[in-house]
């Protein structure tokens, strides 16, 4: 049974379509990758689910269903409550994701107190456990620190702890490793996977890195120009990609086994093919 279902979601900025008939689902406890190049709309899908779309972007049709509850049909207040209780975000940039003028501790415990109505004391205990779980040394000291006193990797760990704090059933990770350097990336990725497995959380993992996808995801959605090109199991994707763009994307991934091989860009012909597909879609929906 899928925990998050998006059905035929369309979104526009003015007359320009941002998302074109996007459908995808994430089963309970599943890790789904959402890949695409910059501007493909992958972050927008995450934002649409979490209700943090910029005000210029409007959802014109489609449904977002979170554990059987249709978010689009709700009043904004109820929607915020449902999302707050069931979903959380691991943001892209750990440097801007913590409020620089507040101590770390309250920023983790806020949501426990606000959403779940815990007492400050219980929330504090829980936050210390979580910081321990994400392997932060001296959690008591870190709770009292300001974000600028901590390194980027530490901050990302704190954000992961804070995302898991209220035991959400869905976490949307919006390129959580992009802003970190490669060695830290690997640790953080491992940590997210561990936490996800231990808590049984469904995870929608937004990324442009197929290497990351192969390590962490069970299924995959490929996006281009706000349109879903392929929706597949991870094994099938790497064995026999169904869409020519997916195949070209795979071929473009550098191979570390053969450093001498030159990089293959995605061929023009494939991009043209995808563009034609999108244009055909827009004509059908009267966007042109």
């Amino acid at each position, binding site marked *: 049974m899928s925990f998050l279902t998006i059905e035929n979601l369309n979104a526009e900025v003015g007359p320009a379509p941002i998302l074109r008939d996007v459908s995808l689902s994430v089963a309970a406890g599943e890790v789904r990758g959402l890949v695409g190049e910059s501007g493909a709309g992958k972050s927008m899908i995450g934002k649409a689910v979490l209700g943090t779309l910029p005000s210029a972007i409007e959802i014109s049709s489609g449904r977002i269903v979170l554990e059987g509850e249709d978010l689009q049909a709700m009043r904004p207040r109820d929607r915020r409550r449902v*999302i707050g209780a069931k979903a959380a*975000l691991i943001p892209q940039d750990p440097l*801007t994701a913590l*409020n*620089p*003028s507040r101590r770390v501790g309250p920023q983790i415990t*806020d949501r426990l107190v606000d959403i779940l109505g815990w007492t400050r004391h219980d929330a504090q205990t829980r936050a210390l456990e979580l910081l321990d779980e994400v392997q932060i040394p001296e959690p008591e000291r870190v709770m009292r620190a*300001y974000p600028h006193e901590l390194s980027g990797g530490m901050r990302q760990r704190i954000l992961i702890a804070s995302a898991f704090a209220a035991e959400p059933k869905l976490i949307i990770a919006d390129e959580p490793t992009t802003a970190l350097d490669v060695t830290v990336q690997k640790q953080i990725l491992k940590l997210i996977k561990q936490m996800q497995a231990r808590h049984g959380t469904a995870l929608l993992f937004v990324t442009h890195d197929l290497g990351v996808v192969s390590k962490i995801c069970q299924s995959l959605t490929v996006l281009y120009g706000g349109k879903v090109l392929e929706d597949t199991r991870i094994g099938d994707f790497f064995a026999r990609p169904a869409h020519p763009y997916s195949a070209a994307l795979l071929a473009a991934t550098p191979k570390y086994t053969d450093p001498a091989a030159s990089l293959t860009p995605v061929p023009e012909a494939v991009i043209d093919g995808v563009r034609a597909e999108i244009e055909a879609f827009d004509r059908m929906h009267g966007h042109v």
Partner: protein
Amino acid sequence: MADGRSQVKRRAGARLWLSATWLGLLVLGAVFAPLIAPQDPLAQDLFGARLPPFWEAGADAAFPLGSDSLGRDVLSRIIHGARIALGVALIAGTLTCLIGSGLGLIAGYFRGWPDMVISRLVDIWMAFPPVLFAILLIAVLGTGLSSIIIAIVVIDWTRFARVIRAEAMSQGAMDYVASAQVAGRKRFSILLAEILPNVLPTIVVLLTLEMGIAVIVEAILSFVNLSISTDQPTWGSMIAEGRLSIHQAWWVLVFPLVTLFLTVLSFSQLGEGLKDHFDPVLR
């Protein structure tokens, strides 16, 4: 992982201490003016007119900074003038700050129609020449302390609204605001808990600048005789009177001018110093 970032201790700069000391002295002077001032600031003595400051020949020790053309003690008048100057700075500065920052925060964070209304209002407001606007307002409201304060607030709230709106906008785009939104926090509480603390250093700097500006505006209005009644000494009116006798008694003009200059400078340096001291982010 435990790097040295938390070990860095910052020193409060010299400018913070210097400006705070000067303003502290002024505040003491203003509060205890009747006790400290050597003379009655209004007492005239035409036989003791234009006495020079203490280091020049012919000075009277009872008039350390000399006396003006009516024989009134310059030092006592400066000390009593600090009451008006600081009162205006404090009250007008704070009111301007509250109104301007409040509107700026609302416009910058909520966007949409509140932003439209507030921003257009700011645009229109800023097209008025400020000094003429002030004189016009005083002409309508009549002279007096409250009129000056109202004039400053009405003219200068735009300064805060502009800057704070931009700050609130850039803070509103940060991920921690999105996170708070996802966590189901109400928008108003996000504004107070997440945005305001980050805008506060800027507000403090603007507030101290505004206090300096308020002192200047009050002096300008006194200078053109639109401030308060002439039996209340103010720095602006002292400068205006001193200007008339500049060739016979320079001290009547120079001492209040220097006081005004140091005060406005201290306000702006105090703001910068406070910002460096309290901003949690090391830049």
